[in-house]
């Protein structure tokens, strides 16, 4: 079925089964492979995108549920003022190791800072606990979020 979406500020129409997850629509139909497949069960956070500004697991979001909504992915997150700060902090602190989870981490951090502009360490743990980093870059993720928020480490 044809479904209309707004992805990264552009209107897109995709022809896909209603139950196809947004993750696979992004990766296969819209050529946006920055959003990653990790578990397919909403457990690792690698597929996190913003849906109307909220962090969602795109592997658990049927495309029909995203119809008519604003979707932001890693490819365009820096167009958001908060997203830009997060991306810059990620680069400054050289957060990634293998880098595979980092798109999801950045999307979750952007959602967190949008809702909680000055997070405590506990807020960060709470907001980021859905995102696994197998290389364990967590100390720098904490620091980068504080840096993006302008909160002293």
């Amino acid at each position, binding site marked *: 079925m044809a479904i209309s979406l707004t992805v990264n500020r552009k209107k897109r129409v995709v022809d896909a089964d209603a139950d*196809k*997850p947004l993750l*696979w629509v992004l990766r*296969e139909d819209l*050529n*946006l*492979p*920055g*959003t*990653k*497949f*990790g*578990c*397919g*069960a909403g*457990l*690792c956070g*690698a597929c996190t995108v913003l849906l109307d500004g909220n962090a969602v697991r795109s592997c658990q979001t049927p495309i029909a549920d995203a119809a008519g909504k604003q979707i932001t*992915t*890693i*490819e365009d997150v*820096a167009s958001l003022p908060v997203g830009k700060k997060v*991306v810059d902090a*990620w*680069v400054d602190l*050289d*957060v*990634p*190791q*293998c*880098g*595979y*989870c*980092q*798109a999801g981490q*950045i999307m979750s951090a952007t959602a967190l800072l949008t809702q909680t502009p000055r997070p405590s*360490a506990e807020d*960060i*743990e709470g907001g*980021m*606990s859905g*995102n*696994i*980093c*197998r*290389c*364990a*870059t*967590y*100390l*720098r*993720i*904490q620091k980068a979020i504080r840096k993006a928020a302008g909160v002293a480490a």
Partner: protein
Amino acid sequence: MSIVKDREAAGAALSRRSLSRRSFLAASLAGGAVLTFDARIALAQATGAAGEPVVLTAFIRINADNSVTIGAKNPEIGQGVKTMLPMLIAEELDVAWNQVRIEQTDADDKRYGLQVAGGSTATPNNWLPMRQAGAAARAMLVAAAAKQWGVAPASLSTEAGKVIDKAGGRSVPYAALAREAAGMPVPDLATVPLKPAGAFHIIGQPMQGVDTPRIVKGTPLFGIDTHLPGMLHAALVKCPAFGGTIARIDDAAVRGIAGVVAVVPVNSGLVPPGQQDAVAIVADSWWKASKAREKLVVAWDDAAQKEFSTAGYAKQAGEALGAAPQTDLFKAGDADKALAGAAKTVSADYSYPFLAHATLEPQNCTALWTTDGKLELWAPTQNPGSGRKEVAAMLGIAPEAMTIHMTRIGGGFGRRLMSDYMVLAAQVAKGVPGRPVKLLWDRTDDLRHDYYRPAGWHRFTAGLDAKGALIAFKDHFITFGADGKPIRAAEMSSTEFPAPVVPDAHLGATYLKTNLPTGWLRAPTSNAMAFVYQGFLDEVAEAAGVDLPELMRRTLGEPRELPTERKGLVFHTGRARSVIDAVCKAAGWTGRTGPAKGAGDAVKGRGFGFYFSHRGYFAEVVDVTVSGGTAVKVDKIWMAGDIGSQIINPLNAEHQSQGAAIDGIAQALVWQPVVQEAGAITADNFGDFPLLRIDAVPRDVAITWVKSDFPPTGLGEPALPPVIPAIANAIRAATGKRLRSLPLQLT
């Protein structure tokens, strides 16, 4: 200091051997106006017999704008090697780091030398050769300038990609010399001058990961991101029990699904080859292929595999522990007699489970079987050379008929040293000739079809004399094997410390049978041996009335080199002692302490662990808080490490060490055993194989580098093992309870 000598002598010998063959330079015009030249310099390759290939490598391209493109030859799994190896070349080439562009090379070990991400070997293997490659190219550029100006090369210097004639008050960029330089003779790599450490301006500087700016933009870099025109997608149905084969397939319902292109029976090529069948569904979308699996009916022939289970192994191990070992690994004196005469003895059983690797990027590989019988692969592989051989053997093609592109890798941890996903993808591609196909596993495939870190059991007994000195030591190790030999990654070194320094010692092994494929997990064998040995030695120290650092100092004795099982590798007791002392100083270690009170019902404790692995010496101190009697949180880790004379990239060194330490916390406290029932693994997803999350991370991992006069060694692994026993020992200090099985669980 014999390590230094051995290493340098080996490097020189390799270089001389290589240069006995023809080395050459080739100049070429490529990319229109861009002048390129390959410094094809013979590197590490033994060329004994006539007719054997000479290793020629091409790492450096000098561009018209005087930027320099450097080839990064090793697979990047997040260990930072794509940044680090080019740093070595750039340093000696004497360019500014901001002139450098880095490209991942293809897999071609004849051209580039060994390409592998494993064993923390990239640094020790490449520290000299990469610098020699850079230095040789620099010497040729200098020679070209000298010829142009009619001066002696020795009168010239270089800086930031320019050759400088100080006396003549002139300079010329490398780009203007590149063509001329390509015709200069290649200097003898064994004697080409290398910079003294004091002149380094790239080595030793904190350098950002080369792909970081791309990663944060979502640029396609990983194997899973491979996209080719007309590409198909494949999902797998694998036999749940390892070693099972296909009895019958009914794919009629699958073939009727719109978008499904083919159903291809394939085989993992496990050892022994021919084991472990699977069926690939090929479609125009992975989502479709994956969903179509529900409609595929496969009957498996796996009756012979049903006997294997976690519960069965535990029962067999329990029985074996009480019996004599099947094999002796090490024997000195008479341990039983010495134990009988000891003033005090300590006995304990330790164990650890099977574990999966759980790389966050699931296994995948893209393959194109061309209609003329050639194969092209895009592979996130840690081990392309081995992958090439295995694919060639399975498909019956020449290794040379294959092109392997190496992608960035979303986590390796040893999983991708194995090549099953490449072998499978190649077979799928052969089933759809002329069309590229990307094979992707889902998470359940990944957890259920790994090469697992093998479980193990140990029965220790130690004897102390009246003064508390360790005089007798025994370990009966129950592991997995066949024909009296351990299977992959299931071995224990015959020189496991402290056995070689105890007068009467006995290490023995008994091998259980399994159908599970086993493999190397980051710091393989060491991640288990550190836990059981340093955990048990903490018990021995307690019996001796000292703390573990003190027992280690006494047992290590005078600074000296002890031989290890591995030829050419020694264990230096002085280096061990120096990191032990350094971490105790950094952490303010004050000896064995009892529990300290925390907030509410919480208790705090401190533990220590040391381990030598992958040529690195690491001692670590961990503070834990135990709340509610069972919840363990690591508060802080201090580590001291000796990986030689030079930290090449201090920023990445910090990343690797902190990541390894936190990975150790995961193994100690978070990861649950991989469970096998009726031949098959039961783990489904991260619900039953949980990974460590941000809330389990300590507030700090503090690192002290102990510099020594030894050549630099690797850092992907050696910081991991000591954390695990340090946590167990800290829990003992906090609670009085001694946990001897992983994961550490208070009940």
